[in-house]
């Protein structure tokens, strides 16, 4: 009997969506379980699958975890920490805006709704600077690449994104343009990605999985990084054992700030 492991919406881990074979092999080897590895490009589908017990494990981001807690009782197996996982608000270098408060009344591009580093993080940055993002600014949800073009053309005054996104954009700009953008604000590191397990999975399987990951974390991470060019992205990654639900209260706060209070109830309150 194979276990089903789905992966979704890991910003910065997109490679894993298509080059998962080494990781899957490694995970099978260390856990001794057969694994059906299912990369899913949409988190809604992945979460519904977990809720309807069609998937056993789900590797997802913090925003997914919060939603999943609300919709079904998923447990955490391990967390996945990546250094330099934070949100930015970027403006053009020649922009007159130097304080985040100056974004009041401006048009700001962010990623699709519910993305931790591209939507929730940047919104929270605005909020912590004292703005009311939904009232004081015009938030435009879009594909970030489009937002980037919009920033260049001046349609948008600022764009919220993750750290790795900015690196990706800059790498594609011509040399003389790479210093044409300025980080207006950056957040602290965001909560961790994590591996969730559906409530229907026997405790024993869960333990088996958790133990295997703990014991072989180095080789598993190495296997993710086997994508050649992308090795660098995954440097410094590690698995974390002690994940508490309250670590994600930050994300719940972000949901509230972003205007989705339904996902902001703190567990245990």
């Amino acid at each position, binding site marked *: 009997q194979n276990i089903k492991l789905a992966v979704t919406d890991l910003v910065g881990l997109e490679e894993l969506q298509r080059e998962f074979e080494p990781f899957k092999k490694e995970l099978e080897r260390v856990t001794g379980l057969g694994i059906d590895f299912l990369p899913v490009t949409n988190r*809604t589908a992945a979460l519904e699958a977990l809720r309807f017990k069609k998937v056993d494990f789900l590797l997802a981001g913090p925003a997914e975890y919060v939603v999943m807690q609300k919709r079904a009782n998923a447990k955490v197996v391990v967390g996945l920490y990546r250094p330099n996982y934070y949100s930015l608000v970027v403006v053009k270098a020649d922009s007159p805006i130097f304080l985040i408060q100056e974004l009041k009344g401006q048009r700001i591009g962010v990623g699709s709704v519910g993305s931790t580093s591209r939507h929730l993080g940047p919104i929270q940055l605005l909020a912590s600077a004292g703005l009311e993002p939904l009232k004081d600014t015009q938030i435009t949800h879009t594909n970030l690449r489009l937002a980037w073009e919009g920033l260049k053309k001046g349609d948008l005054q600022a764009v919220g994104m993750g750290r790795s996104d900015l690196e990706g954009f800059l790498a594609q700009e011509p040399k003389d343009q790479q210093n044409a953008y300025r980080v207006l604000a950056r957040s602290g590191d965001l909560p961790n990605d994590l591996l969730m397990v559906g409530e229907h999975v026997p405790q024993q399987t869960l333990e088996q999985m958790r133990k295997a990951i703990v014991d072989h974390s180095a080789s598993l991470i190495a296997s993710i990084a086997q994508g050649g060019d992308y090795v660098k992205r995954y440097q410094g990654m590690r698995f974390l054992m002690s994940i508490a639900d309250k670590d994600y209260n930050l994300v719940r706060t972000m949901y509230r700030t972003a205007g989705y209070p339904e996902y902001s109830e703190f567990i245990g309150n």
Partner: protein
Amino acid sequence: MTEKSPVNLPARFERPSPGSLLAFLAFVALLAWSISAAGISVSELLTGLPNMAKIASEMMPPATDRLQPMMYSVWVTFQMALVGTVIGIGISLPLAVLMSRNYTPHQVVRAFIRSLVSFIRTIPDLAWALFFVASVGLGPFAGTLTLVMDTIGFCARFFAESIEEVEEGPPEALAAIGASKLSVILCAILPMSMPSLINTGLFALEKAVRSSVVLGLVGAGGIGAELATSMELFRFDQAATIILMIFLLVLGVEKVSSRARTSLLKKRQ
């Protein structure tokens, strides 16, 4: 004419050429292989029906809390879809003539335009959106242009098909009169293929409304973005409302246009 020799019954089937027999067998084998690869299981589908019902029940009753903004979005979407479709149809008609088997000025032109239209279709919406955002910036114009491309990819091909399927007698008669190609197209091909052209055009309009997600991507608002957000946040009741609204819009357009069509087609020139 009047061969009196006893005539035999024709063969029941013409013996297929070895080539076509081989091609046929290859197709059947491919299909069988594909079906087995698709993991089709009717029993699984049947046992899963209750889950489907559960999701459907989550859509009931459709949410009414955001009715007004949604209605506005639908309206905006319809307007942009209308413009995109009208422009797209205008461009498609000459392309269709150029790429139709019987009215192309030259086979090379035909092959080129056909491939071009196929190519336009193959390029995904997001890529078109990117092109247009880079050139005209975020906003309704970029969205409309994307819809125009969508419409061309679809309409040019189906218009060409309609043109090819017109019964050849009447156009032949006009050619025998010495009418120019343009006259033949306008006086015979166009009236004769009119019902089919109108149907295709209406479908294109419907398609544009449905694919309005791209309008959201380029920051032009529209109902597609609303729908995507509802789904992302598991507000299936809101999603249901939006789907119903689009459905009603589509039905309404069909009603109005089927009336317009009957009165238009009856018109005696």
